[in-house]
């Protein structure tokens, strides 16, 4: 009797919770399209965005950072002149043990350099940022500090001597542009040999750019390569929906390619890694989805899923063969906001069409290109988080905040009643396990098949009892 009472109470509680939830859902489900607050911010229906459009090309730059080396001859002169001793050099063995250029150059301690040159100094541990380069043929360019290939530091004229990639086997070039063939993948950094007017050797890292020739056969200025961080990028291919586009990103771990097939009117996005082993052999393997959907000529490249940074990205359209600056654009977009969408809902957006081409909503398995004022029905296998991206028009230079109005049907704001759900679940569990425990207390353990309990169904029948007593 007691258990029945408890069960009844539990059932009533559950019914109350269910009614509460149902009633709350009814209040949220108004008919028709409505402007809703998707995200729990205070701005209501307006969303702010600050799309950052990266330059089309990107050159790596290290202006203003110096580190110095000194030739043995110069060191010998100084020692003979008594301006310093070998102990000064050996005072920082780590520097001495780490020749930065080749065996004939050594880095002096900061105090010594300050004393001699009176210019900023960075330690070797603060070497210029290295990049990981797989084997290939690369072209590098160098721009001096000034157009005339000279610069002046503290009154001393600085002359360009050589530039190149920091590699024992890599060649160095006198000026301008050169081609470097890399046989072994590894980390490289770029440096430039200078000498000053006193013939003191210095070495500075200056502006440079690099592009792999193997992947960019038609490009000589290598302007469509950029460094990319751990962000999401949209890459736009020119032309009318090219059959095959390719985006390559290079990182420490691997090289990613995006290849789009158009057979059977289905778009497959393939991630292929070309990873070079120590022995030089390459292999291909499917990768996690660094590349996302292909929407209206754009492919989403999600570098947040890459394990390393920096990455270097280049893009070209292999179908077009040649291309100009407008053929490929790599643009970084910030996700302006996000919302949780059920498996089916309708959505429309309104935004400033003079500044933006479209809004893209993107989840793990779906991306929809949305134009202003049109209604889109979303039917997905999964409920999911959707990021909202702005796609600025090509002429957009205005990076001011953008506003998007979102109208939807089937979306609802979060109610954050998780505690109610947890309580209901625990009550259901308590109900089930309570009966289990209670059933064990009601009867003795070890009875088989509950025969006694079944017999007790009829124990209230006095006729049988009287018969037994008479017997």
């Amino acid at each position: 009797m007691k258990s029945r009472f408890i069960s009844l109470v539990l059932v009533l509680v559950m019914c109350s919770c269910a009614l509460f939830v149902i009633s709350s859902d009814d209040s949220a489900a108004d008919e028709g399209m409505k402007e809703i607050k998707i995200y729990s911010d205070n701005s209501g229906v307006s969303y702010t965005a600050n799309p950052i459009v990266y330059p089309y090309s990107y050159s790596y730059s290290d202006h203003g950072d110096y580190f110095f080396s000194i030739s043995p001859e110069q060191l010998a002169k100084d020692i003979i002149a008594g301006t310093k001793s070998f102990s000064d050099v050996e005072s920082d063995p780590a520097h001495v043990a780490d020749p930065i250029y080749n065996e004939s150059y050594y880095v002096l301690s900061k105090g010594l350099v300050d004393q001699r040159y009176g210019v900023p100094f960075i330690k070797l541990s603060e070497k210029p940022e290295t990049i990981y380069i797989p084997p290939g043929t690369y072209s590098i360019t160098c721009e001096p500090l000034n157009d005339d290939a000279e610069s002046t530091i503290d009154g001393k004229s600085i002359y360009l001597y050589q530039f190149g990639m920091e590699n024992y086997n890599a060649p160095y070039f006198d000026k301008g542009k050169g081609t470097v063939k890399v046989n072994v993948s590894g980390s490289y950094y770029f440096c430039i040999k200078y000498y000053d007017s006193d013939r003191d050797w210095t070495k500075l890292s200056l502006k440079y750019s690099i592009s792999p020739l193997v992947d960019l056969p038609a490009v000589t200025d290598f302007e469509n390569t950029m460094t990319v961080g751990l962000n999401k990028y949209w890459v736009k291919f020119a032309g009318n929906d090219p059959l095959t586009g390719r985006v390559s990103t290079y990182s420490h771990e691997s090289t990613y390619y995006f290849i789009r097939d158009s057979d059977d009117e289905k778009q497959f996005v393939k991630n292929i890694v070309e990873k070079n082993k120590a022995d030089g052999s390459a292999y291909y393997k499917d990768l996690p989805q660094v590349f996302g959907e292909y929407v209206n000529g754009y492919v989403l490249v999600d570098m947040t899923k890459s394990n390393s940074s920096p990455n270097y990205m280049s893009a070209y359209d292999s179908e077009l063969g040649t291309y100009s600056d407008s053929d490929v654009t790599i643009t970084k977009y910030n996700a302006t906001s996000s919302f949780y969408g059920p498996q089916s809902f309708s959505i429309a957006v309104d935004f400033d069409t003079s500044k933006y081409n479209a809004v893209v909503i993107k989840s793990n398995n779906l991306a929809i290109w949305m134009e202003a004022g049109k209604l889109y029905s979303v039917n997905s296998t999964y409920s999911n988080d959707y990021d909202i991206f702005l796609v600025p028009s090509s002429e957009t230079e205005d990076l001011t905040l953008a506003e998007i109005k979102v109208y939807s049907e089937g979306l609802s704001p979060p109610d954050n009643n998780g505690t109610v759900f947890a309580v209901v679940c625990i009550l259901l569990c308590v109900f089930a396990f309570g009966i289990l425990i209670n059933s064990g207390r009601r009867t003795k353990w070890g009875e088989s098949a509950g025969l006694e309990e079944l017999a007790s169904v009829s124990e209230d029948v006095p006729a049988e009892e009287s018969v037994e007593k008479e017997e």
Partner: protein
Amino acid sequence: MSRKEKKAKKVKKTIVDSYDESSRDLTDHQAHRDVVYALPSKMSQTMQCYFVQMKRYTRQRVMVLSSVLLILMPVIYYAIKGTYIQEWLLPTSAVTNIAIAGILSFMPILIVLLSCIACGSILSQEFNERTAFLSLPLPMSRSSFYMGKFLAAFTLVGGIVAAAYGIAMLLTMTGTDRTYTWDLFRSLMVSLCFVFFCCSTTYMLSTKLKRGSTMLPFILLFIVLPLIAEIVPVFFKMDVISKILGYLPCFGADVALNMLGYTNVVISFNGIFSNFVSGLIDFSVGGNPIIMSIVCILSGALFLFLGYYVVKRRDV
């Protein structure tokens, strides 16, 4: 008069009537003469069988297994927290529903497995141990006997599923800031409907099998039915067939998880199979939870009725 007759006459005279005259004063009510005795109602009989079966579960492995699994949930969650495994298994999201979907990704196999253990030999065991031959002749209906046992199994597995949802909710509440409660309730509802289907199917099979089996219904529900549903659309390239098969009740747990959100790993046949042959087979489970719930309940009820038909016709 003979000697014997004289002796008997003497004894007869000594007999004293010791009947208690006071008992003759009892009313009909006090003497229970106006009480009509009858069998307990069917509901009482069903509840009695229900409690008896629940008691039996306390001694069976399903109870231990379910308790261990529920305890393991938070243990594993905190063990893998911050590791690469967590990033792979559990999606990072500010939405509680998606986080719960990651934790409950094992639910499809767990529901089928527990249902098979709880119901796979529930009736055949009674007949093998001959206890059914003692129980059924008792003054009770077979339908009560049949339904009581089924309800006990359903309560047990349903309680475990509800507990898993509740624990997942408690685990994710601190790390997320947006909860869509109604979707959670709908997912729980679909899961419970799927439990009903699995229990009734397995229960029906236990009425036909001479010896109970856990493996047979598990293979049927977890492998055979989903495999058929995924392969048939390859040969019949019709969207209608594919959509209909997507609502087979064996995909109930997938639908419940899909409602919550996308996860990298779902331990169901569809989740595993689609990872291996992604792109080759164009099949997706249904997306409407109401339809899936109705299908689960109707098919479960059908199997339940078939099982009852078998039990009713069984000669005891």
